[in-house]
């Protein structure tokens, strides 16, 4: 049994004099979700399009499960589920017909179509629309069908380009649930996204590119530690407003706490250095202060801060 993998070697793409991607090398292996981040025009979609043979590299190559996409697109893509650029589905087809076409061309045995299609339509919450024509659907509904099409053959590798595009908040949450489900089934998910919260929620690793160059690729935890100079932001939620300013100073004095700021009456922002044991000690310290601490965690904006700092460094 081999673990799913994506390998990108020295991938370069030039459009005339413009270099969209400059020697990108990336190796992903195993069951996990890798977030692919970068500002508009950084080269994310260009990379994913070359990874799926929709455009051709100026130099370099891509491999899915060891098969070169450029040399044998059919074999390489047989093991991948792909969603690139929010495609349009033939408007006269129903979701069921569109997915039957995908299953048929991918060689899913016909007796399995019904169950498999029903399952993926259920996953993307489109079962009630299975027999309506796609032409009448909203952008978000079409995107759900596109996600279903990428999953209908239960692929080992899933490549998603901005999967939450056009989806409402509930749809975004459902996409996150689908990605978590894929991870549980030992799938490798490579997903570009602008939504950092989405990446923080479901991704184990992140790769950040800007102007066609890879800035970093690491686990989410390492990224946060590495780019914060060892100091991470932590938010403390309080059950009741903090009225005594002296308590803020006491919190600042806890081991590992570099500073403490009251963001809101019931929320403190700590700058903290220390590993897991340090956090355990911090929690004990907070409880010991009896300030009504009810939660301790990284702020939702942690990845965003790193992202913005790294992008700004290139400007």
């Amino acid at each position, binding site marked *: 049994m*081999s673990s799913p993998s994506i390998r990108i070697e020295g991938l370069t793409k030039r459009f005339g004099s413009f270099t969209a991607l400059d020697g990108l090398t990336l190796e992903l292996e195993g069951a996990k979700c890798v977030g692919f981040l970068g500002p508009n025009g950084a080269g994310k979609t260009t990379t994913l399009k070359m990874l799926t043979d929709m455009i051709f590299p100026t130099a370099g190559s891509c491999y899915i499960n060891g098969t070169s996409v450029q040399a044998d697109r059919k074999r390489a893509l047989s*093991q991948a589920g*792909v969603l690139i650029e929010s495609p349009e589905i033939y408007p006269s087809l129903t979701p069921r017909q*569109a997915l039957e076409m995908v299953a048929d*061309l991918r060689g899913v045995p016909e007796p*399995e179509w019904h169950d498999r299609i029903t399952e993926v339509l259920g996953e993307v919450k489109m079962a009630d629309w299975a027999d309506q024509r796609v032409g009448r659907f909203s952008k978000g509904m079409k995107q759900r069908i596109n996600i279903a099409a990428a999953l209908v*053959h239960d*692929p080992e590798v899933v490549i998603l380009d901005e999967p939450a595009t056009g989806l409402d908040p509930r749809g975004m949450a459902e996409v996150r649930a689908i990605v978590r489900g894929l991870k549980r089934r*030992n799938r490798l998910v490579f997903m570009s996204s602008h939504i950092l919260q989405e990446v923080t929620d479901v991704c184990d690793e992140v790769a950040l590119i800007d102007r066609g160059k890879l800035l970093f690729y690491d686990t989410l935890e390492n990224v946060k530690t590495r780019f914060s100079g060892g100091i991470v932001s932590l938010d403390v939620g309080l059950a009741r407003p903090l009225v005594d300013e002296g308590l803020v100073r006491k919190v600042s004095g806890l081991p590992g706490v570099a500073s403490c700021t009251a963001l809101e009456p019931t929320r403190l922002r700590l700058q903290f250095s220390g590993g897991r044991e340090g956090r355990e000690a911090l929690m004990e310290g907070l409880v010991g202060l009896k300030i009504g601490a009810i939660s301790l965690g990284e702020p939702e904006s942690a990845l965003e801060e790193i992202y913005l700092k790294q992008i700004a460094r290139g400007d």
Partner: protein
Amino acid sequence: MATPAPGATPAEAHATVPDSLTQVFRLSRYQLREYLFSRRFLVLVAVVATIGGIITAIVGHYRGALVSDNLAFYGSFWGGGADVVIVLAAVFFGGDAIAGEFQNKTGYFLMGLPVRRAAVYAGKYVAAFVASVAVLVLFLLILLGNGLYYFGTGAVPWQLGVSLLLAVVYLLAVLGATFLFSSLFKTSAYGFVLTAVLFLFGFTILQALVADLVKMEPWMVISYASPVIGNVFAPNASWALTGTITDVRAGPGGPVLSQVYTPGILEGVVIMLAYFLLTAIAGLLLFEREEFA
């Protein structure tokens, strides 16, 4: 659960994907279904039925010379109408076959699948060909109905079968060119317009220029070949691989005003097949290199 099974090796996963030839026919089946569901096929059937109805009304009204000779009847109406029906079918089914995938973004849905680009191109071509033949046969049946009514069952000439085959070969060539034009652009309208303009009068003008100005047989122009569909009904039809030249004079023994070139039947077939091969290969090569940027 669907194949490949979780944990399947790459080889096992690939083994479930159909071979490219099977994918061509499956793709063409879905494309045909798209023609049906999108009503494109039904619209062209209605157009061809209307053309057939008008011919039926004209023949019924005037009769006389129009129905005096079965060969002349089929030569005029089938020979004259089939190439128009073929061009219409090519525009309807081929004009946006490739360009539409870019313009409508449906290509991103298709190209993420493990299908060779050549299989996509061929699948769409086969579907357009099958749909066009169906429409052509409808036109033939309408004319055959008229022929049977006026000349009886014993007067169906063998040339009609040959002419149908010639029309099918011409269809191959026209669709080949249409797919090439469609591969050249990422906007469907250009493919539609270029096919219609070139095949309805562009090639005919080019043919006249070559024949009248350059004074040579316009064998390199596809419109020169298409009249063989009707010429096959002529009692003195030439089956040669070369064309014949007829001088048009001002009067008996007068000066030659111009020369009329008529293709031999086999010459026409060679020209049409050459167009089919060249345009099919060129279109396929273009599509192989086209980027979904």
